[in-house]
């Protein structure tokens, strides 16, 4: 375990060094995130110009969900996508062999290896929106709420990581599936607004079947003090099962793999 933590620290450091070498302008990425946030918030402004409350959520409460969407999106863009892209590339070019012969768990090495830290722009925008909204609401979440919020965000991260990894392993069979990560990002779009804003059956679908609600709506409910506790449990059970699923998929994929050259 300690060895893996040290390895992870090494991966972070190496990614940071690579990022420093190819400095894609951070200002440009920040600008893009701000544009994206503008239309997301703009959409909410238009909703609320026609209705005073949406599914029981006020405008500022909705802002918290929008902020969480940008946190989730930033996490995927920064920590998950680079690895999935690398896996697809490794399989296409045959360099996956080098990953598999390393004396560590191959899933850890393949899926936790690369980070693009300049994508932190989305995280900053998301955090700024949440802080602004909470200030507008004069809401000061207690320590317990914040702890639960962090636990929930971690659950959302596990969910996103597992779902992406499962999709990524499909490339062991299908080879050329660049862009497959678009599927998850496409689904995540439904997390831009509170799940209560959607009519049934969409609401049920994004709450129970593809639990997008667990990633953005439920953590927002925690800091806003409007939580339904059973969802927390449901979301984490879902995340844990998906994580196990990703491990099983990875093992099956590696067994199936017989290199590009041989």
């Amino acid at each position: 375990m300690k060895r893996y933590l040290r390895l992870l620290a090494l991966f972070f450091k190496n990614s940071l060094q690579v990022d420093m070498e190819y400095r894609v302008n951070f200002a440009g990425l920040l600008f893009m995130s701000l544009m994206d946030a503008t239309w997301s918030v703009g959409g909410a402004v238009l909703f609320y110009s026609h209705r005073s409350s949406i599914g029981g959520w006020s405008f500022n409460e909705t802002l918290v969900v929008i902020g969480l969407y940008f946190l989730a999106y930033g996490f995927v863009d920064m920590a998950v996508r680079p690895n999935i892209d690398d896996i697809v590339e490794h399989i296409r070019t045959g360099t996956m062999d080098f990953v598999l012969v390393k004396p560590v768990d191959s899933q850890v090495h393949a899926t936790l290896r690369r980070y693009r830290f300049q994508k932190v722009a989305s995280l900053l925008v998301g955090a700024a929106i949440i802080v602004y909204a909470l200030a507008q609401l004069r809401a000061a979440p207690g320590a317990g709420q914040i702890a639960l919020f962090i636990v929930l965000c971690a659950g959302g991260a596990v969910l996103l990581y597992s779902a992406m990894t499962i999709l990524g392993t499909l490339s062991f069979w299908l080879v050329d599936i660049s862009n497959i990560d678009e599927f998850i990002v496409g689904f995540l779009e439904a997390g831009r607004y509170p799940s209560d804003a959607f009519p049934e059956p969409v609401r049920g679908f994004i709450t129970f079947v593809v639990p997008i609600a667990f990633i953005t709506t439920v953590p927002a409910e925690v800091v806003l003090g409007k939580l339904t506790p059973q969802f927390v449990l449901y979301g984490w059970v879902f995340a844990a099962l998906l994580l196990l699923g990703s491990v099983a998929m990875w093992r099956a994929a590696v067994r199936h793999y017989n290199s590009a050259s041989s």
Partner: protein
Amino acid sequence: MGYHTRDMLRTLKIYPALLRAYWQRALVYRATYLVVLVNASFPLVMMAIWIGLAQGGAIQGYGAAGFAAYYLAAILVRRITGCGIVRDIELLVRNGDLSVYLLRPLDVVHFYIARILTARLITIPIVAAPVLIGMLITPGIQLNLTPYNLALFALACAVGLAFEFTAQYAIGGLSFWMTQAHGASAAFTLAESFLGGYIVPLALFPATLQIVLQALPFQSSVALPVEILIGRVTPDAAAARILLCAAWVFAIALGARLIWRAGVRSFSAVGA
């Protein structure tokens, strides 16, 4: 026969072959067209929320069926008008491959036109099928399908595609001088989707903003064709807006041409 007429006739003669070549090319990448479906489904999120809101009564004339019609049509129209060529232009300029095209007797723009038109032949059916099914099974959807209105719809789509293409071709031309043209293009796409009615119908914007947006060409990318198809605008008003957008496209095309002429000159000066 004047020089220009001969030139144009020759270009026209080349086009069938050019289109055939790019059609073959489009077929090679067919696996990625599945992703098209995912990207295309993006308006469904906003559609679902507005339908939910409309259950408390119609909003600016849009009831639940109205919103369904608007966004389903928007999914189709976006596939007709949308195109992404900036990144490709940027690569062509940066790694010097452009010089190969410059040597050919046909302007670079024609290769891009052929590519965009043939790609449409694949993406439109992929998206049209689910959209049509959605429109058939959703109760209460109303479309204006008179021949004249359909002709206006087709014309609006053509103008929308021309707007998107010329604007992107102009932005792509910026890569002769800047390295982040694709960033500018992404910003353009985001602005366009909000101001052009892809994310929210223009009728739901504040009244003053609506007047501004109806004077800008962004509407041709989604809002104008969709409003024509679902019968929200009278044919006369539609024709006027199409003409206005066409005038914009003409001006943008002129700008793109100037940018490219200056760009190619500075490009060869570098000696690539």
